[in-house]
C-alpha cells in the first residue's frame, strides 16, 4: 500500500514539475521588455551633435541604452566591449542612446552612433526606463537577442551565438 502511494506521489511530482517548468518557460519568454522576433524600426534620429541621422541599412544593429551615472553600465564595460568587437566583425551598426540628454556621455568612438532625439515609432519600441539595456536586431529590425541589466559572460555568449546565426 505504502509502495503504491510512493509510486503515485513520484508520478504526481514529476507531472507537477513538468507543468511548473513549462509555466516558467512560457512566462520567462514573455517577461522581458523585448522579445525575440519583436519588430523594431531601424534606428534613426538626431545625434548628440544635433545632426539628423537617417536609418542605415546594415546586417544587424547593436543598441545600447545607457546613462552616464549608471554604475551597472560601467560594471559590464568589459563584456560590452567584447560584444561590440564581435558586432563590428559582423558589420552591425552600433547605436548608443541615453534615456534623457543630460545622461548622455560622448563616447568619442567613431564606431558608435549616439542618438539623442528619436521619433515616436522608434520610441514606442524602446523601453528606456532601465539602464543598461543591450539589444541586437537583425537587418529587418527584428529583435534577435536582448539583455536588461548589466551583461555577464553568459549573456555575451548568447548574443554572439545570435550573431553567428545571422550568417
Amino acid at each position, binding site marked *: 500500500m505504502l509502495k503504491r502511494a510512493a509510486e503515485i506521489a513520484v508520478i504526481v511530482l514529476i507531472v507537477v514539475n513538468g507543468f511548473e517548468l513549462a509555466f*516558467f518557460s512560457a512566462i520567462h519568454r514573455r*517577461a522581458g521588455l523585448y522579445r525575440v522576433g519583436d519588430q523594431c524600426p531601424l534606428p534613426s534620429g538626431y545625434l548628440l551633435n544635433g545632426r539628423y541621422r537617417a536609418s542605415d541599412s546594415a546586417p544587424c544593429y547593436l543598441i545600447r541604452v545607457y546613462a552616464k551615472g549608471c554604475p551597472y553600465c560601467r560594471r559590464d564595460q568589459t563584456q560590452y566591449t567584447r560584444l561590440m568587437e564581435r558586432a563590428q566583425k559582423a558589420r552591425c551598426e552600433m547605436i548608443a542612446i541615453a*534615456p534623457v540628454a543630460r545622461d548622455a556621455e560622448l563616447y568619442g568612438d567613431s564606431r558608435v552612433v549616439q542618438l539623442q*532625439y528619436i521619433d*515616436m515609432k522608434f*520610441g514606442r519600441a524602446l*523601453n528606456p*526606463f532601465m539602464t543598461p539595456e543591450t539589444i541586437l536586431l537583425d537587418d529587418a529590425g527584428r529583435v534577435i537577442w536582448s539583455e536588461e541589466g548589466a551583461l555577464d559572460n553568459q549573456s555575451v555568449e548568447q548574443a554572439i551565438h545570435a550573431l553567428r546565426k545571422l550568417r
Partner: protein
Amino acid sequence: MRPIPTLLCLVMLSVSGARLALLGVKELQRYRSSQNDNSLNPNTGSFAGIGADGGEKRPNLDDNGHLLLFVIHHSRIRSDIDFWNQVIILAGQSHRQARGNIKYWGICDSGAECDPYQSEAHFTILGHLEPFEMRIMAGADANGDALLYNQSNVLNGRVAHAPCPAAQANLILQSAK
C-alpha cells in the same frame, strides 16, 4: 520500489518543485510589472525635442505654467490640427490666463512628416523627443490621453480624450487648476 531511493526521489522532486514554483512566482511578478503601464510611466518628464524648423525646443514654462503634450497623427493630421486648434482657442476663451499659462506641444507620430503643417497649428509641433519622454508619450497615445505637466516637470494629470473640443478644453482646464 526500494524505500530509500523512493524517499530520496520524493525529496528531490519536492525540492525542485518548490524551487520551480518560487521561480515561477518571481517571473510572474516580473511579467506583471513589465505589463503594468503605471510602472513604466514615471511621473516626471523630460522636455526637449526637435521642432518643425529642425531646431531644439524647450518649453521654458512660467511660474504656475503648464505644458500639455498630445500626439498628432500624420494619417489624419488636418483633423487633429483642427481639433487641437479649437481646443486651444476654447481653453483661452474659458480662462483668459490659461492660454498664456499652458503651452501646447503636439508630438507627431511619424517623426518629421508633420513638420510642413506647423504654420496651420496653434501649437508647437515636434517630431523627435528624448527617448524617455517619447516612450511615455507613446504609452499615453495608446490610451488616447494627453499629458499635462507643471512647471516642475511633474505630471499634473492625464487628460482623457474628449469627443469634442469644448469638452477637451474643459478637461484640460480642470487638470490645470
